């Protein structure tokens, strides 16, 4: 593996592990705020116990979220130095604002959430909890503004003198439609994760017949919050944004295995086996017109297929090749008006020209075969995206069904919830994590071959490190993260099994001296 593969693998690994903890933090923070609100409004201490107990589990998860989060911020500089130089002027700002506006708030108040119970009035503590939840969500907002810009980089311009992208319109970057859609989709997915977590563990107590009052109330709150969130993920989720920019169009075509452009409205491929060689989907099960409706909101607009998109990329790579050569001439000292004028005509396609640097050091004399290869590689492989997208959607609908049933039984105030429903809830525990990881895979693998869509290819974005150095860091990270995740899961399981008895209030089912001693 070369430095590009290794750096990509390390980033993917650390990001995916990080995102095991983030969605639960997002969801649990709000659930805790809701539970504590009920406590403050009704004065019933069982709701305070709920906040404290689910807060304990929240804390076990939060610690690893913080740990793995530090790695994310460091890595842009350590492993993606050219990326940091090339787009730091735009990309760095939302990250710094995230720290100032959100991360400070969340991290300062999380300390008061855990240690301020006896020192703050009920109302002040509740305010702390809500602000902590607000902090986690604002944090997600700014991170997704940064990420949205990678997918659809607007509000910025290339400066040939500083050899980087520079900010042209901050409001365009903030109100990037791709970022806004991603934000709603991602935080809702977090709420679903929190809700499934509480629902599954509460159902397990109900199945065991333990701490019934505690479990029933937790079940009710989780099912209502989860139902609303699951609807939000699916309905408001990733509904739009696919008509913006080529990267998103390519992603849509790949996710749907839309090899050719079909007459509008396009059919939606429910299932099938994408075949890269023949550029067709074998055994495809199609639903007429649905894709056209989802993607374009119309019956007469076409959804461009991969063949059409690649033909367009060929044109842009040829123009980009000229732009790249002119850029090098300019930087070598040829600042004649002719060079500048021609470069400015072509600079939109500079990124496409940079794609060629993966195949040759001499971009000016790239062979037709190298150009053809660059065109071929200008879209990601179909099957990984096709399948991960369908896994995500399947998990999403399964969870929607679960929440709908759970909410129905809560609303009816069924005292003894049916066993099959409780088992369904317990076994659904992994679903939100599978959906989240699959979703991020679609978003980021679907962005390839770009680090910044149509602007900076991934292979150029890396730091010029030695392969040995990255192997050392990669192996160390994998070993450390594995140990951390094992410890986290073990502690989480242990505390989930003990349940509210771990609070030592004397009110819960397992508070025999033996158990009390163990914790």
């Amino acid at each position, binding site marked *: 593996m070369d430095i590009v593969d290794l750096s990509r693998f390390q980033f993917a690994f650390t990001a995916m592990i990080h995102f095991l903890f983030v969605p639960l933090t997002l969801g649990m923070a709000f659930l805790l705020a809701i539970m504590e609100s009920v406590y403050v409004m009704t004065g019933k201490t069982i709701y305070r116990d709920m906040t404290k107990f689910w807060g304990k589990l929240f804390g*076990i998860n*939060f*610690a690893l979220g*913080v*740990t793995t989060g*530090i*790695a994310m911020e*460091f890595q*842009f*500089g*350590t*492993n993606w*130095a*050219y*990326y*940091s130089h090339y*787009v*730091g*002027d735009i990309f*760095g*700002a939302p*990250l*710094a*604002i*995230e*720290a*100032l*506006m959100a*991360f*400070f*708030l969340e*991290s*300062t108040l*999380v*300390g*008061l959430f*855990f*240690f*301020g*119970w006896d*020192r703050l009035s009920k109302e002040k503590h509740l305010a702390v909890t809500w602000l902590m939840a607000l902090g986690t969500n604002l944090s997600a907002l700014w991170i997704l503004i940064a990420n949205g810009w990678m997918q659809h980089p607007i509000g910025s311009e290339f*400066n040939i*003198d*500083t*050899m*980087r992208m*520079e*900010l042209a319109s*901050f409001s365009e970057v903030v109100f990037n439609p791709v970022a806004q859609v991603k934000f709603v989709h991602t935080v809702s997915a977090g709420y679903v994760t929190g809700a499934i977590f509480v629902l599954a563990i509460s159902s397990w107590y109900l199945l065991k017949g333990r701490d019934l009052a505690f479990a029933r109330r937790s079940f009710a709150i989780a099912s209502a919050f989860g139902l609303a969130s699951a609807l939000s993920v699916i309905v408001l989720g990733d509904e739009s944004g696919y008509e913006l920019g080529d990267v998103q169009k390519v992603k849509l075509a790949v996710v749907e295995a839309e090899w050719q452009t079909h007459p509008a409205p396009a059919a939606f491929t429910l299932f099938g086996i994408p075949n890269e060689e023949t550029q067709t989907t074998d055994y495809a099960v199609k639903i007429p017109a649905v894709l056209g409706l989802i993607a374009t909101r119309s019956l007469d607009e076409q959804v461009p297929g991969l063949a059409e998109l690649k033909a367009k990329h060929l044109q842009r790579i040829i123009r980009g090749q000229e732009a790249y050569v002119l850029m*090098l001439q300019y*930087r070598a000292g040829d600042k004649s008006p002719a060079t500048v004028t021609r470069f400015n005509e072509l600079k939109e396609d500079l990124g496409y020209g940079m794609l060629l640097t993966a195949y040759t050091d001499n971009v000016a004399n790239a062979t037709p075969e190298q150009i053809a290869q660059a065109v071929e590689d200008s879209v990601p492989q179909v099957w990984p995206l096709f399948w991960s997208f369908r896994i995500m959607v399947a998990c999403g609908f399964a969870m929607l069904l679960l929440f709908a049933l759970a909410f129905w039984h809560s609303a009816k105030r069924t005292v003894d919830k049916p066993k099959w429903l409780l088992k369904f809830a317990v076994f659904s525990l992994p679903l939100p994590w599978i959906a989240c990881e699959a979703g991020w895979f679609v978003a980021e693998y679907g962005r390839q071959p770009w680090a910044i869509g149509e602007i900076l290819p991934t292979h150029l974005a890396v*730091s010029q*490190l030695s392969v040995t*150095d990255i192997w050392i860091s990669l192996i*160390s*990270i994998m070993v*450390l993260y594995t140990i951390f995740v094992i410890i986290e899961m073990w*502690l989480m399981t242990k505390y989930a099994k003990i349940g509210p008895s771990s609070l*030592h209030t004397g009110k819960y089912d397992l508070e025999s001296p033996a158990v009390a001693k163990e*914790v």
Partner: protein
Amino acid sequence: MDYEALRFIWWLLIGVLLIGFVITDGFDMGVAALLKVLGNSNDERRVMINAIAPHWDGNQVWLITAGGALFAAWPTVYAASFSGFYLALMLTLFALFLRPIGFEYRAKIDNEQWRNRWDWALTAGSAIPALIFGVAFGNLLQGVPFYFDDILRLHYTGSFWALLNPFALLAGVLSLLMIVNHGATYLQLKTEGELKARSEKLSTLLALSCALLFVLAGVWLYVGIDGYIVSSVIDTNGANRTTEKLVEVAAAGWFVNYGKLPLLWLVPLLAVLGFVACALASKAKRHISAFISSSLAMAMVILTAGISMFPFVMPSSSHPAHSLTMWDATASETTLMIMFVVACIFVPIILAYTGWGYYVMRGRLNEQHIRDNSHSLY
């Protein structure tokens, strides 16, 4: 406000963030690094941990923010330093990994061996970054080998082992002792009895050592280390032309700024006085004074490094013309302006709620309190 002013403000703001980091996160790193030194029993160590438990997470955000601000305001510096010091940064990162889980998980299982392992993890997780940050500064003062190619890709040609040279190690030890001393002054404020007495004694000793090492580093810098001087005119209001200036390497070059403006000598002088005052205050049991003088001394140490190198932030020893300065390695004027406004709005808000957090958790902790609240505390 023009580009030049914004560039200068951001040089100051990066300094403010670093100072915010050493004063706040510095004390919790110091306390954690002292767990095995000052804490003689589990209850004592729990007192120490719970003295910082509500605050360490918020404090650490100063470091995260300094990183984010570097990314936004000095993207090329962020890229060059983080990728150039790759393995050192990775080591720092691995150490920092241990802190959040160490704090959160240590008290979750009632087992001596479990706690002991997390104590070591917390010690390493706090001492290693303190040491490495000093080593990094020690290397910046000597210049590190890197250059840019035709599309401004950075190539770093040094090795990890070359970072561990004698001067850098001295800077590393100074940084570690500063942080540990700061932790000891915080413990004077938050603990009682023997633990407090031990902290006072340790601070007296450490603060004096810091003053000594700081003076030693200054002498070494004057006698044995070449500084960098820009010998062409940089257009401080124009676009970055990072590789197009002329730079000279000269003996005692890092003292040129003090010659131009002798008033600046006050800064290193205050650093030394701050450490001495900290030692005296600790001996006299003036705990608040000890903490404040330690904070002042550390701020002045950082400022001394900044002023000595000004306008350089990362000199290149192999290609001095490619050195990064606070005039020609910055973000665009638009980004600096937006980030300045954001900082003006949010830094006061952050200081307000952070201050409130300390107010809510005010007072000293003792072992009885730990035993009474065994299940809700760390």
